[in-house]
């Protein structure tokens, strides 16, 4: 193995690692706030990447139908609750949020697709389609189970992953797609050939991580999210609504997932089911970091990216096996260190 191969593999690993780091942060956030192990995170990646690729080829992505359908279902559930609780004054807000907003987004997409807008506008539209799916998903699948055990929530996550993956096949089909790179430029840094797209990925990840940090440190909603994560009961007692925090964390997770998908789609061919494996690698990064610390999770994710890139060089067929086996000794080490906390009886 020559030095430039090492450099090339490292670049590849860091680029993927940056994406995994973003996903790891989102997974950690969702878990800390809602105790949901967020398996469907991967679907946001696939939805965003495939939507972007479809829009570029002048087709209306099926995401709009998922958005409209999901919004309608969430609205139905909210309305049913409002009727049950005799709180019909909530109706306008429910309709605006879950029906009107999706309809407006869908209308803009329909209008925009044949006009082949600038790539940046298309990216914005993709975000507008995919990001609301997070809170909608929380409302439909998780909110009614907010008090359930981690294990029940995990099974729900698996079921939601199933549904979204199935929808993905229906709306995007079985073929893999790739979107146009943001830039075709390449730089020579010493002997290393750096693609501008890789730089974009790393740069965008860093900006996003910085923005998250600001949110948690500076805004009352960010602090409320952290408060919910460190002490759920305390958060309820000061009047932080658990459902709002759940939706907020899912919103951030779907945003991060969608951005990851947009960043990765010019580099990797994305299939309807690729998201799951990518999301899992973000997960392994989070676990390598101990499922508790954000910086460690990011470092763990970077390590996964590098490991994957180098093992694909030595034993390409076993790349996935190596990455996924790695987790076991780390988990063992973690569990030896941490005290066992018994799950409470329901």
């Amino acid at each position, binding site marked *: 193995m020559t030095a430039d191969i090492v450099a090339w593999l490292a670049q590849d690993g860091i680029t993927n690692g940056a994406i995994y780091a973003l996903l790891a942060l989102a997974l950690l956030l969702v878990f800390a706030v809602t105790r949901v192990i967020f398996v469907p995170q991967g679907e946001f990646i696939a939805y965003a990447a495939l939507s972007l690729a479809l829009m570029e080829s002048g087709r209306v992505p099926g995401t709009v139908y998922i958005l409209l359908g999901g919004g309608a279902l969430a609205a139905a559930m909210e309305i049913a609750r409002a009727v049950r609780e005799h709180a019909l004054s909530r109706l306008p807000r429910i309709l605006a949020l879950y029906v009107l907003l999706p309809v407006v987004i869908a209308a803009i997409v329909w209008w925009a697709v044949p006009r082949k807008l600038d790539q940046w506008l298309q990216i914005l539209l993709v975000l507008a389609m995919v990001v609301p799916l997070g809170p909608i998903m929380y409302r439909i699948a998780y909110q009614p189970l907010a008090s359930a055990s981690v294990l029940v929530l995990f099974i729900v996550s698996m079921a939601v992953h199933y549904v979204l993956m199935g929808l993905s096949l229906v709306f995007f089909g079985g073929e893999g797609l790739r979107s146009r790179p943001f830039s075709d430029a390449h730089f020579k840094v010493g002997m290393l050939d750096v693609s501008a797209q890789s730089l974009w990925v790393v740069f965008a990840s860093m900006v996003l991580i910085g923005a998250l940090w600001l949110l948690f440190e500076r805004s009352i909603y960010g602090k409320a999210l952290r*408060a919910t994560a460190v002490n759920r009961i305390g958060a309820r007692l000061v009047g932080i609504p658990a459902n709002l925090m759940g939706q907020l964390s899912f919103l951030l997770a779907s945003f991060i997932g969608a951005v990851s998908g947009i960043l990765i789609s010019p580099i990797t061919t994305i299939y309807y089911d690729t998201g799951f494996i990518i999301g899992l690698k973000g997960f392994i990064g989070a676990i390598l970091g101990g499922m508790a610390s954000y910086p460690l999770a990011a470092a763990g994710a970077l390590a996964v990216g590098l490991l994957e890139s180098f093992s694909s060089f030595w034993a390409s067929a076993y790349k996935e096996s190596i990455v996924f086996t790695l987790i076991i000794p780390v988990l063992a080490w973690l569990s030896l260190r941490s005290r066992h906390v018994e799950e409470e009886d329901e």
Partner: protein
Amino acid sequence: MSASLEVRELSVAYGKVEALHRASLRVSDGSIVTVIGPNGAGKTTLLGALMGLLRYSGRADYAGVDLGDVPVEARVARGLCLVPERRELFGELTVEDNLRLGAFQRYRRADPTIGADIAGVYERFPRLRERRGQLAGTLSGGERQMLALGRALMAKPRLLLLDEPSLGLAPRFVREILHIIADLRKTGVSILLVEQNARAALQIADYGYVIEAGEIVLEGEARQLAENPRVIESYLGGGSGA
């Protein structure tokens, strides 16, 4: 006097086990009412139900309105506030952020007086001002209790539910905290005080209830309760002379 809180036949069950059985009690506006009784009698359960953390049967009216299935956050918004036995602070956040989050509902309403109220809490608890940048998890037992009280005050409560505020505090601190509680009444806050330190509780309360094995077995003016032989024997340590 009108009732801040009116509880009628409140029952709470964990699964099939009833922890609270048809408890009825009343907190008049601007008064301190205490509920005393041994561990496991159902005191914490009562507060949990009133705060909306536990499902209950029966009825609880707050400021004349049935609380029904009003969620916790809406109760906080209406001025009902619980300082739990375990304090439930945000250990990884600073003292000041803990206070700020106490006013979360007011932030949502864009209440402009939050800053002034933080200053007010610091005035009441100067020690918290010294530790404003420190993480709440590093505080001592007494400071935690001050922060828990301070955080609750940030919600501008009209009825405070206090669960064992003297728990785990050195006697000197117990006195301090109880004085502060007695002081709060002057600002118009009604207080429902749950205590195992019956002597101290009865000293600052106007009215008291004794709860045993999930049922209210005795009630009366605090002063009379303190002289009740049964209470003296069970909770005040007969003839200890303190």
